[in-house]
């Protein structure tokens, strides 16, 4: 799962049926034929103020329709995850009297992700339950929104750790070399030796239940089967930061050799200042692109772990857990498994497109 993104498809060359393509770059024909670029002076360009590379990249990003749509969809999911439950619990939501225990519940309860009404199993969408119910009478829409929230929350937590550790260790290894670099190399090799989610499965498999009891008293995260998410997040972060550190290290090495760094050094700037002022800001593009793709993988990872029963526990919800539960009834009630599956697919594809868009915007050379 780590080296998936090393190879980017280039801009395709023109096809032909028997002659030699002279690597035509369609947008700059002169370049392809070893001709000088047409030097017709662009008056307009001369009048615009010079733009920093960062701004230029942002402009490129803004123009990329695919990326912009992706951002929109991600924003939509974030809003749904955070505000969705509140809205859902207050729109067209009269109190409901349960036939199971006779109590009357407000919508904040019966449209929560953990509440179940055992006589309302496997229902299709209705006024009361907008996406229907699952096999133990839980509200699918509520669980879906909770699942999205879990995915995004885990992604954020893991990514923060990924970026912090990745930049910290990567820069130190790249800039100073020596034993830190060696250590990083050994450590990376080790983490790569555990293919994919194996390490996470191992960790959550063995320490999962103790994590449940250990973290269960933490407010918000603890109850309702979410306690294990902290362990899952730690395990996922542990597996993905080495790759980020490798990218950062590589970029640091490249930057280190550049003349402006040498200039800074000769003028007496301390290493710390150099790192903070010159190196880290230039890591932006590579970190952002890698982080987006890591987020995609993390979301899949969390869903996968929960699917195997090692992540969020009942009555909590995760997209993976919903898929696992629903897949048992794919014969009779395919609705229950399709809803979380399609949602997960959309989220993942969106992050994928966004990552591609980011990469094209910040590193257009990689299109070649």
């Amino acid at each position, binding site marked *: 799962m780590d080296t998936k993104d090393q190879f980017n498809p280039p801009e395709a060359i023109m096809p032909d049926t028997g002659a030699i393509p*002279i690597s035509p770059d369609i947008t700059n*024909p*002169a370049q392809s*034929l070893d*001709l000088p670029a047409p030097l017709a002076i662009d008056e307009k360009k001369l009048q615009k103020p010079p733009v920093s590379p960062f701004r230029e990249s942002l402009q490129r990003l803004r123009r990329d329709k695919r990326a912009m749509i992706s951002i929109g969809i991600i924003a939509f999911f974030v809003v749904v995850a955070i505000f969705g439950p509140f809205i859902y619990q207050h729109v067209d939501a009269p109190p409901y009297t349960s036939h199971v225990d006779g109590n009357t519940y407000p919508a904040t309860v019966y449209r929560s992700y953990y509440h179940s009404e055992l006589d309302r199993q496997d229902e299709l969408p209705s006024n009361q339950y907008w996406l229907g119910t699952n096999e133990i009478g839980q509200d699918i829409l509520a669980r879906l929104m909770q699942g999205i929230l879990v995915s995004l929350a885990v992604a954020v937590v893991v990514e923060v750790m990924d970026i912090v550790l990745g930049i910290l260790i990567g820069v130190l290894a790249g800039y100073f070399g020596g034993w830190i670099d060696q250590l990083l190399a050994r450590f990376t090799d080790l983490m790569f030796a555990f293919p994919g989610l194996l390490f996470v499965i191992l960790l959550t498999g063995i320490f999962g239940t103790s994590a449940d009891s250990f973290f269960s008293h933490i407010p918000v995260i603890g109850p309702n089967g979410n306690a294990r998410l902290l362990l899952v997040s730690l395990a996922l972060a542990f597996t993905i930061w080495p790759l980020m550190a490798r990218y950062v290290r590589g970029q640091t090495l490249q930057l280190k050799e550049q003349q402006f760094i040498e200039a800074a050094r000769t003028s007496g700037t301390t290493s710390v200042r150099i790192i903070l002022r010159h190196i880290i800001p230039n890591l932006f593009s590579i970190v952002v692109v890698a982080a987006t793709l890591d987020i995609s993988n993390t979301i899949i990872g969390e869903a996968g772990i929960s699917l195997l029963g090692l992540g969020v526990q009942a009555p909590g919800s995760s997209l993976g857990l919903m898929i696992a539960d629903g897949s048992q009834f794919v014969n009779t009630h395919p609705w229950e498994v399709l809803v979380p599956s399609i949602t997960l697919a959309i989220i993942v594809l969106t992050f994928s497109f966004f990552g591609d868009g980011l990469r094209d915007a910040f590193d257009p050379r990689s299109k070649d």
Partner: protein
Amino acid sequence: MAENLLEVSNLKTYFFTRAGVVKAVDDVSFTIQPGETLGVVGESGCGKSVTALSVMRLVATPPGKITGDILFNGDNIMDKNMDELTELRGSKISMIFQDPMTSLNPVFTIGYQIAETVKRHRKDMSKDQAWKRAVEMLDLVRIPDAKRRARNYPHEFSGGMRQRVMIAIALACNPQLLIADEPTTALDVTIQAQVLELMKGLSKEFGTAVMLITHDLGVVAGTCEYVNVMYAGHIVESAPVKQIFETPAHPYTVGLLHSIPRLDDQRGIRLTPIGGQPPDLLNPPPGCPYAPRCPKVQARCRQERPELKPVGRGEQVAACFYPD
């Protein structure tokens, strides 16, 4: 004289791109006699390489389009289909390219790469005979220990030796015309001389005509009999080599000669570069393409395009209004 070996008439190679039409070769005509060495000079982007590729029809034809006539031994190459073309290439007309480091396939031995050409065009030869011929060719291009080295891979050879291998491949089937696109540009100066000398010697020995493309006038001086000077997709002057150097007619040729140092220059003479910018092939201005930079420009030059007409003595022709 005998029939022309190669007769190019009104060759135009345009590239149709999103940005517009690039007229890389814009109405070029010339001939090559059997056994003759023709030099084609010009700066980067003047269309000399594209002309060469067009003769072999090695240009990518979706963006590119070739029109005109290319008569080789009387047959029009433009009329040939793919099968006939592949028969022609490598056996009657061969080409070698600029960068020897990347022109050879890294995963095949050089012996194989030579033998492959032989086997392709000489159906009568067996694998062993083809290999033998490959070794012969390596000897011919003066690769030491040819028999053993035929089993080596390209990365085990230096740049100069790889270019010799390219020559070996090109001459393996005894072509009538060898097109050499800047064959020595990527080599060290001393190696350059060796490779040029080799080419000259072999072409004399086998009667191969050579179309030598280069931007280096020094190379032309040592090896060619005739010279075409190209600018912005046109031939602006064409003459026997001596006349090009002694009595250049076109202002561009004059400018080129003045911008390089000569052994017989006096000390203290300044080099005069050609002012102005390289031509825009997407939107060429009307008239003579050199007009924007020409020190002898007249009003007429900007409106009419001059045709090649005889100047000076003998066979020299130039496309200019100046001598008028």
